[in-house]
C-alpha cells in the first residue's frame, strides 16, 4: 500500500503589513510527512501553528513557496484536477453552505462541480442523507438547520464524489459535545473502518487526536516537531507524572517559573494565566519527592487554590516537546527579518 498524501519540505510564507512595516511570516516551515492509504493521521498543534495553512496547500487552495505535495502519487501543482477529485474537504464553521438552498440543492450543485451525472448524484445524495440521518429534512432550507445538522450537510458535501482522501480541518470546533461525539464516531467507524478513507485530521483537541488517529504529527510555529503513534508519544515520558497547581494573586510568574525549573528532577514547567487564575503544569518523574519544595516556592509568589497529580496526556507530551500548550494562540514568533 502506498502513500495517500506526501508532503515534502513545504514552506509557506505570508507577507503582512504594508510599507516600512511590511514583514514576512513563516506559516509552514519545511514540513515533511507521509500519510498511508486508509490511515487517520492527526495534525495536532495550537491555534496559528500552521495546520490550516498546510491543509489549504494540500487542497490546492494555496500555492507553497517551495516543496512538493503529492496526492495518490501525483503532484498537486502539476495535476490539480486529478488531486482535487481525490480530496473531500471539511472545515469548521457554519458558514460554508448556501443557506437559502436545501441540503439536497446544495449537494446537487457541488456534485455537478465534481462531474457527477444526474443518476450518480441522486444515488449519492440518497445514500449520504440516509447515512447522516438527514433524509426527512433534505428539502428544507439549510438556514433552518441546527449547527450540527449544517456540519452534517458539509460532511455530505465532502463525501459527495466519494473521495479517497478526506481533509478534516478542525471538524468538531464549536459543535456541542453530543454532536462532536457523533462526528468522531462517524469518522472512525464509518469513514475509516467501513469506507477505508484516508483522513487527515487537524485539531487542537488532544482527546480527539488520541482517540481517532493512528499517527500524530505535532506542529508548532509552522514546524513539524515530531510524528509518532499516540502510544509512542506517551512512552516518551516514561514513569513521569504531571503536577498541576492552580493559583491566584500571582506576583511574578516569570521568576517563579525560573525558580521552579531549578528544583532537581523537574523536567518542564508551563504556566498559563487566564483572568486572575494561573495554572502550572510541571512534568517530573515523581511529584511526591519534590512536592513540599514546589509548594513552598509557589507560596512565595501566589496563593494556591488546588493541587493535583496526574498521568501524562498527549498535551503534556506536547508541552514537554515544545514548552507550549495546545490551547495557546501562536502570535508573532514566526516573523522573519
Amino acid at each position, binding site marked *: 500500500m502506498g502513500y495517500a498524501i506526501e508532503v515534502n519540505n513545504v514552506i509557506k510564507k505570508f507577507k503582512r503589513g504594508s510599507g516600512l512595516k511590511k514583514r514576512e511570516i513563516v506559516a509552514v516551515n519545511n514540513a515533511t510527512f507521509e500519510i498511508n492509504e486508509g490511515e487517520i493521521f492527526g495534525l495536532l498543534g495550537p491555534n496559528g501553528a500552521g495546520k490550516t495553512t498546510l491543509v489549504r496547500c494540500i487542497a490546492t*487552495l494555496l500555492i507553497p513557496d517551495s516543496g512538493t505535495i503529492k496526492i495518490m502519487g501525483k503532484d498537486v501543482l502539476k495535476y490539480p484536477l486529478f488531486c*482535487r477529485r481525490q480530496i473531500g474537504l471539511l472545515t469548521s464553521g457554519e*458558514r460554508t*453552505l*448556501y443557506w*437559502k438552498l436545501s441540503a439536497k440543492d446544495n449537494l446537487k*450543485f*457541488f456534485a*455537478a462541480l465534481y462531474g457527477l*451525472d444526474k443518476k450518480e448524484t441522486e444515488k449519492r445524495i440518497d445514500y449520504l442523507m440516509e447515512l447522516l440521518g438527514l433524509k426527512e429534512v433534505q428539502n428544507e432550507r439549510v438556514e433552518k438547520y441546527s449547527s450540527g445538522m449544517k456540519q452534517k450537510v458539509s460532511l455530505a458535501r465532502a463525501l459527495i464524489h466519494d473521495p479517497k482522501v478526506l481533509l478534516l480541518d478542525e471538524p468538531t470546533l464549536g459543535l456541542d459535545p453530543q454532536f462532536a461525539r457523533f462526528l468522531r464516531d462517524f469518522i472512525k467507524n464509518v469513514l475509516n473502518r467501513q469506507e477505508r478513507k484516508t483522513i487527515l485530521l487537524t485539531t487542537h483537541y488532544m482527546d480527539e487526536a488520541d482517540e481517532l488517529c493512528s499517527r500524530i504529527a505535532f506542529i508548532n510555529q509552522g514546524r513539524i516537531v515530531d510524528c509518532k503513534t499516540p502510544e509512542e508519544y506517551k512512552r516518551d515520558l516514561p514513569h513521569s507524572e504531571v503536577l498541576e497547581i492552580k493559583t491566584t494573586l500571582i506576583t511574578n510568574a516569570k521568576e517563579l517559573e525560573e525558580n521552579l525549573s531549578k528544583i532537581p528532577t523537574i523536567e518542564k514547567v508551563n504556566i498559563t494565566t487566564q483572568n486572575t487564575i494561573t495554572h502550572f503544569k510541571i512534568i517530573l518523574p515523581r511529584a511526591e519527592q519534590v512536592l513540599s519544595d514546589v509548594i513552598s516556592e509557589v507560596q512565595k509568589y501566589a496563593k494556591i487554590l488546588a493541587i493535583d497529580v496526574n498521568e501524562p496526556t498527549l498535551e503534556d507530551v506536547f508541552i514537554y516537546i515544545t514548552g507550549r500548550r495546545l490551547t495557546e494562540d501562536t502570535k508573532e514568533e514566526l516573523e522573519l527579518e
Partner: protein
Amino acid sequence: MNFKAQLRIVISEFQKSIKIWLAYPILLVFWVIAPLMWLLPFIFQGKALVGGMHSEAFKNLTGSPNYLPFVLIGAMVSTYIFSGLWGVGNSLREETYWGTLEYIIASPASPILVLLGKTLAEFLYASVNVGLQALLATLFLGLNLTITKILPVLVIVLLLVIGFYGFAIAFAGLTLLIKEAHGWVHTIEWVFYLFSPIRYPVEVSPITKTLSALIPLTYALVAIRTIILLNKNLGDLHKIIFILLIMDIVLLLGGYIIFRLSERRTKVAGTLGQY
C-alpha cells in the same frame, strides 16, 4: 471533464443563482421597478429644461428631436450592463461571504464555468427586467418598439453583453485580490454614465465624445437607437458590429487572462477565503 459535465456545471450554477434570487422576492420586485424610478427624474428634468420632450438642440446632436425614447433606450440597455457588473463582477465576493468560494475553488470545476452560469442567470434576469421595462415604455411612454426591430436589437445586445461579461469576469477575478467590490462597481457605473451616451449624447463635450469611443456600450447604444429611432437595419450598422466583435474578442480573452492571474496571485498570497 467532458463537455457534458462542463455544461452541467454551467446549468447547475444557473439553477442555483435563480433559486437564491427567488428566495428574496421583494428584492426582485425592487429591481423591476428601480430602473423606471431612476428614469423618471430625467424625464421630468428634460421637460423642465426644454418645455417638453422635443428639442432642436437635441436633434442637432443626435438626429432625433425626441429626448424620451433616447433616455428610455439608454436606461434599458444599461440595465444589462449594470446588473452584469453587480451580478457577475460581485459574485465571487458573495461566494466569499457565503463561505462557499473555497469549496468551489477546491473542486475540479473551472471557476470560469461557474461564472458562465452566473452570467447566464444574470442575462435572463436582466432580460426579464428589460422586457418589462420595454413593455411599460411601449404602452405608457410611446416608445415605438415593433417586433421587426426587436431581433436586430437583440443581436446588438448580445454583442454588447458577450464582451461586457468578459470585463465582468476580469472584475470578478480582481475582487479576489482587492477584497472590495461595491466602491469599484459604483466608480465603473459613473464612468459609464459619464462617458457613454446612456442619459445624454456624448457629443455635448469633446472629452466625453473622445473617451466614449473606448466603451463598447457607446457603440451598442448608437446602433440600438439607430434601429429603433431612425428605422435602420443591421446591414446599415456593419461597421459598428465589426467594432463590437473585435471588442468582444479582446474583452473575453483579457477577462479570462486577468481572472486566471488574479486567482493564482490570490492562492500565492493566501487571501482566497478572506473577507
